[in-house]
């Protein structure tokens, strides 16, 4: 197992350059006798503008960590700074406020069947203080994602890849500085999955967004600046792409997959 520390991260970067900073984060599920620790002493920095992919076996706590960073759970312990705000001990309404600056992309598209593609995107625009031009903004981002001719289609009339692109448009339309994606390609075929990820990469690079993506999909690892691996609730490795590829040659990777 590689435990080589990542070359870039732990040496302290100034706060302004960091989108997410996690220190000594522990997290438990359940109460009393059933209380079970799922995250152990996590330390992680996500610098601005980076695409970070998080992998690891099922049940290793990836999604839990993602939801904590996404301000979807209250954090009792440790230090978790998202976009400059420490969300440890925040109440629910403050968490809602933090979430408005984060774009979420899920495994399922979670679009309202009753709303057209543009209307689904407009639901996100309406959260922003300046939403009067919502239709224009929605059409602009859908065009950017190659859906200009599907703007007024209902989700039922769209293909899986198109629906996921609408969901991405919804996550990106407010230009959030941080984007969290959970298996965004899991429900897509190879080509649509590739397209979706490439789009996300282009947007991140051209507009300086930070993306944290949980995935099992080996085909898309190449878009990442860094790859973080979690095992059993601990950060197992944190390395740049070249290093990851070196240490995870196909044979090793295959064996790992059998073991887990």
């Amino acid at each position, binding site marked *: 197992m590689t435990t080589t520390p990542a070359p870039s991260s732990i040496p302290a970067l100034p706060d302004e350059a960091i989108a997410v900073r996690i220190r000594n984060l522990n997290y438990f599920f359940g109460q009393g006798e059933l209380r079970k620790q799922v995250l152990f002493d996590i330390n992680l920095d996500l610098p601005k503008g980076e695409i970070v992919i998080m992998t690891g076996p099922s049940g290793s706590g990836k*999604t839990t960590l*993602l*939801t904590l960073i*996404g301000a*979807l*759970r209250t954090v009792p312990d440790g230090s978790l700074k998202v976009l400059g705000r420490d969300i440890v001990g925040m109440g629910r*309404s403050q968490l*809602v*406020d933090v*979430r*408005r600056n984060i774009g*979420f992309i*899920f*495994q*399922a598209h*979670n*679009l*309202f*069947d*009753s*709303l057209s593609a543009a*209307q689904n995107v*407009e*639901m*996100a625009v*309406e*959260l922003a203080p300046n*939403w*009067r*031009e*919502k*239709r224009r903004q929605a059409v602009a981002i859908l065009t950017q994602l190659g859906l200009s001719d599907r703007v007024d289609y209902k989700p039922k009339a769209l293909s899986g890849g198109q629906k996921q692109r609408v969901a991405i448009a*919804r996550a990106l339309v407010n230009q959030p500085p941080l984007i969290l994606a*959970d*298996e965004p390609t899991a429900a897509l075929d190879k080509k649509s999955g590739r397209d979706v990820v490439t789009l996300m990469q282009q947007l991140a690079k051209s507009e300086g967004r930070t993306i944290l993506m949980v995935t099992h999909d080996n085909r898309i690892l190449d878009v990442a600046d860094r790859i973080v691996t979690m095992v059993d609730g601990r950060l197992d490795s944190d390395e740049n792409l070249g290093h990851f590829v070196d240490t995870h040659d196909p044979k090793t990777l295959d064996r790992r997959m059998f073991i887990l």
Partner: protein
Amino acid sequence: MMRLRTPLAWFNLTYERRRLVTALAGVAFAVLLMFMFRGFENALFDSQVQLLKLLNGEVVMVNRLKYSMFIPEQFARRRLYQAQAFAGVEDAYAFYITNANWKNPETQAVRPLRVLAFNPDDPVLPLPEILAHRDQLKLPWTVMIDERSRPEVGPTTAGLETELAETRVRLVGAYALGTDFAAGDGNVVMSDQNFLRLFSSLGPDEDSRDLNTVDIGLLRLSDDANPVAVVDALRQALPQDISIYTKDEFVAVELTYWRENTAIGFVFTLLTTMSFAVGVILVYQILYTDVSDHWKEYATLKAMGYTNFYLLKVVLQQALILGVLGFVPGYFISLVLYRLTANATGLLIQMTLERGLNLLIATVIMCLISGAIAVRKVQTTDPAEVFGS
């Protein structure tokens, strides 16, 4: 259009047409049930006082013992003459009531009817048909019958001859009034002279009637007189064997009797409440299904930064739309059923603006309660659960 927020509630509700129609039918049914039960209750009460409301006079005088129209107690006619001496009293009419058996001219079956008698020269019961037949009513052995009596009374064509109180009488016309609990199967109207002819010498087992004892006394006041003041003056000056009311008080006393001494009010309030509860459950079911079908989308909205309050608003808007849209068909079907019921029973079942509005408010409250229960499902939705599933 660009400047409005997306009406998510409306889109979600109208997206599946068939489900919407089913939902509206459910709401309409609950509305219909409430309208019918309220309608019957009001009809029973309204019917009891419809005759009293028609009587012409601002002040009413009855025997002190007569606490309901059921009670056959009379008072001395001279009280009416005494009352006429008071300032503001223009005229006094005597109104006689008794019960008598009516023979259906077709089937010869005998039914009890209520007899209403007064001097046809006085506008005591100013129904247009009665005023038009004043002269015929003055002829001996003539009567008019209520065409909205129970069907057992038989044909009501003018010119028919039949028996009332085992005496031959001739029908000279019909008027429209309606029945109530005290009226038996209907009301028959005649002149005070014919009343005397028919009921002054009954057999030894029955109490014969004459014109010296009056069932209801009616005082017509001059235009500038204040009924309350006149009633006060009369109450102080006249002997204690009579009760004196303004007409509104008289109607209220009768209604209070029916409300407080019968189970009508209780039974129908219970039935209406049950319909309300059925409506709450129906609408809850509809909204809950919608919320559970869309919980992932709603949870996504929460993850994106929508508050619980926003989701509460969406569900309550859906409830409100269902309530208002479902009320409309419920209202119109009720109007039709009211008409059919009135024709079938002769009861005075009527829709008033106030009753319609009251039930509209009740329907809206019904839907809001359902919405408030259903929304708890969204409120407790943990947006973190959308991840990883």
